[in-house]
């Protein structure tokens, strides 16, 4: 068996007396599309922030391709090939769409903090930026200010910035939140295509998206993973049904696509 793309072992996080993450252990294989679901307040966002470097773990380890990244600064983790998106659009709203994506591309192409080159003359950066924009279908809006984009396009741009650096572990935090049905369908197709061959970790509330996209699903409840498995296994799991009450449980049952 190969080294997992992401390996989390007995991870804990407390904020003062609040014990949010209570011993999460999870291995994600390279190329796997893994979804984390769970009721509100289960600690999904905290787990995301722990992995991507926003928070320090209180205990436990997080390994990216076998290398410990727990507690590292976000930019260092990003350079190691892990990139994330945000639940609320977190773009550079004063810049154009093209410049937004370019910000995501620059470091990975080795231009770092350079001050001796004109960005307008970096043809490899421009080509890469155009490729990314092409792949997310934002090419025709490239020169619009990001702040003027419709909501769904801002979410798309969010994903574009996330994949721009060429990271092979992509984490998406509720990428379809607030989208209409047709927008969600487009977004799912886009995510599938943009993360082709990459490892994907996704937090999502829309069960349709989760069961459509994920190879495996983990269910996080009160800071613990109560079940991990293929979509069919999760659907039939009694503990998962208990954790989700009412409508949402029906949604898990019913969405047998």
């Amino acid at each position: 068996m190969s080294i997992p793309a992401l390996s989390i072992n007995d991870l804990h996080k407390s904020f003062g007396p609040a014990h949010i993450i209570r011993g999460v252990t999870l291995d994600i294989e390279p190329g796997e599309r893994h979804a984390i679901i769970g009721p509100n307040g289960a600690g999904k966002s905290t787990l995301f922030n722990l992995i991507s470097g926003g928070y320090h773990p209180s205990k436990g380890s997080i390994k990216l391709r076998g290398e410990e990244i727990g507690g590292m600064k976000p930019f260092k983790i990003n350079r190691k090939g892990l990139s994330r998106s945000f639940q609320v659009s977190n773009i550079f709203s004063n810049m154009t769409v093209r410049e937004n994506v370019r910000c995501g591309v620059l470091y990975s192409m080795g231009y770092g903090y350079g001050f001796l080159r004109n960005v307008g003359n970096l043809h490899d950066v421009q080509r890469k930026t155009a490729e990314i924009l092409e792949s997310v279908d934002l090419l025709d809006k490239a020169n619009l200010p990001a702040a003027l984009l419709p909501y769904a396009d801002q979410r798309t741009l969010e994903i574009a910035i996330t994949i721009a650096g060429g990271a092979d572990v992509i984490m998406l935090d509720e990428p379809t939140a607030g989208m209409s049905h047709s927008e969600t369908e487009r977004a799912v197709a886009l995510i599938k295509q943009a993360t082709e061959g990459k490892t994907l970790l996704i937090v999502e509330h829309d069960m349709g998206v989760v069961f459509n996209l994920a190879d495996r699903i983990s269910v996080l409840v009160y800071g613990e993973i109560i079940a991990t498995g293929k979509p069919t296994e999760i659907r039939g799991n009694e503990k998962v049904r208990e954790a989700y009450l009412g409508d949402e449980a029906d949604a898990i049952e019913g969405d047998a696509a």
Partner: protein
Amino acid sequence: MSNVATNSVNVLGPTGSEKFMRRIMPLIALAVVLAVIPVFGPSRTVYSLLNAMGVNIVFAMSYNMLLGRAGLLSFGHAVYFGLGGYAAVHAMGAIEAASYGDGGFWASYPVFFLPVVGFAGGALAGAVIGWPSCRRAGTPFAMISLGVAELIAAAGFMFGSIFGGEEGVSGDRMNGPELFGLSLGPIEEVYWFIAFWTFIGVLGTYAFTRTPLGKMSEATRDNPERVEFVGYDPQKVRYLVFIFSGGFAGLAGGMAAVNYEIFTPEALSLAPSGMVLLMAYIGGIRYFAGPILGAILLTYMQSMMSDYSEAWLLYLGLLFIVIVMFAPGGLAGIFVGLFSGLRGEDAGENFRRWAVQVAGIVLMMIGIITLVEVSVHWSNNYGEVFHPFGVQLPHDGVLTWAVIFIPFVAGVGILRMAHKNKEGQA
């Protein structure tokens, strides 16, 4: 897919001619203006004003690298201007000593290139002071900059051998090798020196905005969190920008050293730090050319308006407050608004609205200026009376208070009405 993308690269960015018009043309225009000014045969007073403007333009541009581009509010930018200037004035002394003494490196260093020494001095100071202060942005950064400014200003009066005490350190620019046939003696020749370095300063600060670091500094200003997740350390971005900003401030200091041939600890103090903030903000920090406008206007006010009125600083304060409250885009923002308004479809409508606004503002200004001038004359106790256009306006005259209140109230009324009309239409 990649084929399509490769072809569309050219479509994405601005075209060659757009780039030329928007980026190269303004620089050529600046160079032409700088080169043409002496043709009009300015007087010595005008030359010294122009030279002061050149220094302040570069200083304000360096400040805007922090405030406008990186979102860092500094209350102590004169520290880097001053330390760069002191480095240059000491180097000027070294050139003098070396050319009358045993030669060496400084004997062959032209005074014309002293701003390079200033740049190095300012950048070095930025590298040392920026290390602790760039760890935080926002309010902590502003507070630290204020503390550092106080500290360096106090040190300026303590370390006599470096800062020369209250008299400062002076030098003589007419030493060392001459460059471009400029002895730098007469003020006309100093003008060419200032013009050259003003152009270099503007070109340099502009080029910086085009680099990856310059772009990431804007990204860090807008969204430091996201910057971390595209592989950049926002602290390091701020620190590097800070060093460059200190360097260009030092360049301006080096220009000042040659222009005035003296540096005093005042140059490090809070007063010039505040002045450069006003220049950048009044000019417009969101526009690259904004600080140039601000530097020109404030330098003019500083040297010309102080001849007309003792209360000029009061007017400056009022101008600043008005800009902050009503025109956050600064002078540059106002110009851009005028330009686009006159080119739009409702140009006539816009023009009428502005005419009304200008009338209101002028009326208010008549009231305010009269009030200020009458008060200043009265409080001076010289028995002198404010007498614009031969009209005597004593502080206890009925006419005086009529001239103060009637235009002021009329002006306020007109502006309010214009505002209401606009809202009514919208």
